[in-house]
């Protein structure tokens, strides 16, 4: 076993890359759940985004157009969920699970002719001067634009939720949809917009996998990333920065265990493979257990069907 082959600098740099798809999906789902909707279809929306982004990027040769297409694809798929749950009042859990299955099937159908192709390369933003700083440079300033976009999105979501009127209305809808309705807010419209935002974010996360992290298209390539994103939202107590922490922690342990496997650590591979899941959940549980008010953290109307009967 040779631990010296693991470079801390490269490890942290690849951690950010590994965490980005989950972070994107989780921050979108956070908004959805803050509006009181439980969309379990994250996995399906991610993989649909992955193939939409991949196909369009290959056809146009532009990764940027690919990412836009991925967001559109994810949002479109989430709209099916939105219409079913908000207008037709279907059960959110069942509909979300169905969406995941549908997304997995749809993406393999769409992706049949794209297996084995290489997508156009997304360039790293070689930020001059800053990226030349030793150690910090390669860690922080030598990534593709989506890594920074995801980080900016976390900050924007936090600001939007806590500092704007729209964010306040969104939280109010998620807390008590009857009271929000009585005060004259459009519960269903707010929720549909939130669902579409969540779908777009999940789509971006999926495209990040197929266009940058892997980068190629294989069936079922999200491999549970959507479920991890869902778990991180819950264990992160619906707080944007805790979701960021959870995603980076998961990414970090994933990269570390891959490196350890490569270094030939004398632990069965199965244990190493399960470690990211165990450690992320354990850390987030311990963190949220400390605060007595976690029960207040979950949006009170989460998963409940709203019908304006008055």
């Amino acid at each position: 076993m040779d631990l010296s082959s693991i470079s801390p600098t490269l490890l942290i740099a690849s951690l950010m890359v590994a965490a980005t798809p989950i972070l994107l999906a989780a921050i979108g789902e956070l908004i959805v759940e803050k509006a009181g909707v439980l969309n379990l279809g994250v996995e399906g929306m991610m993989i649909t985004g992955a193939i939409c982004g991949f196909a369009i990027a290959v056809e146009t040769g532009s990764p940027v157009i690919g990412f836009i297409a991925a967001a559109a694809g994810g949002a479109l798929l989430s709209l099916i969920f939105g219409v079913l749950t908000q207008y037709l009042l279907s059960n959110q859990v069942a509909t979300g699970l169905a969406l995941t299955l549908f997304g997995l099937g749809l993406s393999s159908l769409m992706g049949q002719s794209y297996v084995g192709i290489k997508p156009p390369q997304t360039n790293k933003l070689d930020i001059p001067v800053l990226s030349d700083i030793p150690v910090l440079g390669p860690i922080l300033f030598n990534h593709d634009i989506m890594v920074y976009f995801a980080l900016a999105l976390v900050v924007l979501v936090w600001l939007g939720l806590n500092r704007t009127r729209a964010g306040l209305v969104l939280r109010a809808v998620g807390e008590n949809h009857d009271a929000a309705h009585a005060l004259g807010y459009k519960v269903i419209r707010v929720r549909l917009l939130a669902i579409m935002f969540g779908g777009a974010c999940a789509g971006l996360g999926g495209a990040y996998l197929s266009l940058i992290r892997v980068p190629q298209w294989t069936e079922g390539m999200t491999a549970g990333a959507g479920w991890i994103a869902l778990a991180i939202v819950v264990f992160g107590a619906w707080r944007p920065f805790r979701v960021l922490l959870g995603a980076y922690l998961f990414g970090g342990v994933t990269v570390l265990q891959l490196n350890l496997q490569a270094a030939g650590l004398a632990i069965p591979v199965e244990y190493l493979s399960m470690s990211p899941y165990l450690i992320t959940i354990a850390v987030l549980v311990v963190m949220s257990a400390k605060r007595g008010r976690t029960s207040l953290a979950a949006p009170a109307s989460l998963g409940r069907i709203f019908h304006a009967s008055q």
Partner: protein
Amino acid sequence: MNALLDLDGLTKAYPGVVANDDVSFSIQEGEVHALLGENGAGKSTLVKMIYGLVKPDSGTMQLRGSSFAPPEPRAARASGVAMVFQHFSLFEALDVAENIALGMENPPAMRELAARITEVSQNYGLPLDPSRLVGELSAGERQRVEIIRCLLQNPKLLIMDEPTSVLTPQEVEILFKTLETLKSEGTSILYISHKLEEIRRLCDSATILRLGKKVATCNPREETAKAMAEMMVGSTLHQPERKPHKTQEVALQLHDLTLPAQSAFGTTLKNISFSVQKGEILGIGGVAGNGQDELTAALSGEALSDAGAIEMHGKPIGQMGPNARREIGLLAAPEERLGHAAAPDMSLIENALLTGDIRKGLSRRGFLNWPKAKAFAENVIAEFDVRTPGPGNAARALSGGNLQKFVIGREILQAPEVLVINQPTWGVDAAAAADIRQALLDLAANGAALVVISQDLDELMEISDRFAALNEGRLTEPVPAFGLSVEQIGLMMGGAHDLEAVQ
């Protein structure tokens, strides 16, 4: 003085009931106007029409001389009508300032709003910290949030629906000071309550409703509480021809039962003591929300108390759960039929099993005796004239009166030694109600002790041997129901704890 709001001939009918029948009165500028009446007298419907939640079938309203017909609450708010609801419409996980901002059409920036909340709340003697989470506030503080939400809109008319029902006496004192300040500033207040002493203290005039009709408008300061109670209850209370009950062995005894409120809006039971003898019916009256549900739960075993606080045949049972109490013959029927007394989506057979298993032996070694359960359910249906196609029907499918007959029949046919019933005939048509009352009288005649909790005074007078009233979690001394006058009942309900003070 000029009228701020004129109501003229307001009528609103719902299927089967006329909630408001030709109600007319005026609220003057800067007065506190009380709206009095028993449950179901039509107070809420009337207020909802003023606030734009319900449209009147006929009749008109005028606000400062111009026609006023708000299609929705937003329009009423824009015209200067604000309302503090009995059940608050707040967001628990949001802080005070956010809650208030959500109720405003054009809220200022958060920091500015917080400053205004602090300022207004200090001016009116209702201190509130804008940054606290509403979920952490007491009921009184939550009400302040609603009041300040209204005050920030500078209302001309403030409607308050039973504002003191969830408040402690100290909080009531603070609220009254605030309302007096508002009145001195020229705001009119429409104040809904059953509490006569409060109204005598606070209000300039009072409109009394009974069964949807206006009975009178009077000056509460010139009327006695007795006179108002008579107007509210009606002087036609049925005087039952019942012989005084013969003294027998005590079946159920409560000693100083004290039980803290189980939920934020619950009532704390305070030092409740009474005894019920075999063959006797104790009627417990009182305005809703004064501890009826809590007392039912404490008696049925849903809420446990000190072991010795409740005794049956001299044995302490306060720590026994509902099934242990059923085993020794104490049965109960709670107020809420669907969801509490019966599981809505389960069949009548299954519902019969749920409470009847122990006393009727409907299961053996963990396996249900289905034919026996079906026979029991069919027996209840036949004996109590429950109108349903069969015992396999879901409880939800029955009408209110039929389900109530089923629920009460289910308990009575288990031959209880003590039966506790909350609201036996609530929402039940007259014929079914008479059947239920007769069944209760028959049960008592066979030697069972009954505790009947109800808001229907006629009913209590008809069947009770003794009567007591619940008020803010306290129970008055039970007195013989025979010959009890309307004014005595009204005063017992209104909070005069000693009947001697009345006489």
